């Protein structure tokens, strides 16, 4: 029968080993040869777009890379799906955008801010998502 000492060794040993493997896999994932996060194409506009994305908690309604709330559409492939003109109109309008009656806050972004957010969406749209993009992209909808 298992003793308390053996149970403790199982806990401590298992934790240390799995955590070390976890750190190793993290380093592996972001190593140059394995990185698929489109890191090399991050521009100043993409970073500004990400800052606006966070400052306004867009994730509190939308999802991106499948993460966020489930109240508004997934935006991973939004540029392909809607086009830049439509997105710019939504971002700059001074009144609530309400497709099908569900309202979005009227952020009234400037043209420059809208361009930064679109750069961010464009960058997101080119990340290798291990096939998830075929589920959420307009291309998948045509299949």
């Amino acid at each position: 029968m298992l003793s308390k000492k053996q149970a403790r060794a199982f806990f401590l040993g298992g934790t240390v080993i799995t955590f070390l493997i976890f750190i190793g896999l993290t380093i592996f994932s972001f190593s140059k040869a394995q990185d698929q996060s489109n890191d090399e194409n991050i521009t100043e506009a993409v970073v500004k777009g990400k800052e606006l994305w966070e400052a306004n908690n867009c994730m509190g309604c939308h999802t991106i890379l499948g993460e966020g709330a489930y109240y508004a559409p997934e935006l991973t492939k939004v540029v392909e799906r809607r086009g830049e003109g439509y997105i710019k109109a939504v971002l700059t309008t001074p009144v609530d955008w309400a497709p099908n009656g569900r309202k979005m806050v009227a952020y009234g972004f400037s043209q420059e801010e809208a361009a930064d957010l679109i750069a961010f969406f464009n960058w997101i749209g080119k990340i290798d998502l291990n096939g998830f993009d075929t589920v959420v992209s307009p291309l998948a909808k045509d299949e």
Partner: protein
Amino acid sequence: MKYKSQKVAYWFFALSMLLFGLQIVYGFIMGSAHAGYDGLHSIIPFNTARAVHTNLLVVWLLSGFMGAAYYIIPEEAQRELVNVKLAYVQLISLAVVGVIAIVGYHFNYWEGRKFLEIPRPLDYLVVVNVLLFLGLILTTLFKGKRKTTTALVLSMGLLFAALLYLPGMLPFDSQVKDSFFRWWVVHLWVEGVWELIMGGILSFLLIKLTGVDREVIEKWLYVIVGLTFLSGVLGTGHHYYYIGVNKIWLIVGGIFSALEPLAFLAMALFAVNMYRKGEKKHPNKLALYWTLGAAIVSFMGAGLLGFAHTLPQTNKYTHGTLVTAMHGHLAFWGAYAMIVLAIISYSLPNMTGRKLYESTRGRVAFWLSNIGMIGMTVAFGVAGVAQVYLERKFKMEFMAVQKEIEIHFVVLILCATIFLTGIISYMIDFYKHGKPNDEALETVSN
């Protein structure tokens, strides 16, 4: 209650109750918006309601864990808390940071990162607050007469929870890296170190309520938390399938997260077996309900429903849909909300001296809240599965699908009303116990 300083726990629990109530109010706002009634949009838009709802959950659970530690650690270490005044300072500062954050969310003052919306300057205050808390708990533990496994596991959980908050504060230009390390906080909290905290509280409650030998309970506690980390750390990979990192996570995350239910199954079997083995003499039946309930419902919510969409083949379609909300609600309720309600139910009569062990209201609270939450989970599940099929299989537009599933949110609101009735009953019971007092010191032996 054996030590006067344990009374400080009461005020942490009271704060928990207050924030829990508020969390439910914001849940109703979100549910109504999903059902098509968003009358509060101009004051409380959905993203505000969402940030408030999830952050209040985190804060009230943390306040509950802290209260549990302030109650359990002195009793386990067999000495008074090292500094009671500082514990009250910590309580007030926690409440102040929480209130500033919640109010800020209504004025676009946040950092829009799921679950970690607290703005950066407040993050530093959280760190100071938690350091103060840990200082008090760990000093009490190490100055105490004994260092039990229960106390060590609980303290270790709290310490690691504090350490793991830090990766969430790292700044990244890449959304992928941001997300990757955000899960170091969120996943390793709820599917890692918080289970240590849960295990510690569960172990304390089982020792007190069943009368089974401490050595037996604590041995199995090690096995359970061992299983938790063995599966949970690499199980983090299930968040990495489709966010822009290497395919290796599909294999690692798939295998290890599929093992995660084992830890919850072990916890449920452990709690039920200890109860069967025990003398069943303890009069506080309500605390026993909540304790066994937590172990069983956490297996259903975190274990089974988590498994339902953790495999990469399934998750490819359910990732980013309401299926996540289905699993999230029952998991948080079973694993963390119920264990906090269990320690409150156990400790409240001991701190106040009022032995309301067998009230009808208490049973109503238990059953209605659980029935309501299971109903809510089913409503989320039906809405989520319908969303997956319509949107991801039949390629319908997002909003067209949302219109189709509105009715499930009406059902959700009905079930949430049953849940709320249960929680109000619990809160009335809490209030009826009165305030903690020193007279309770001699009257209760356990």
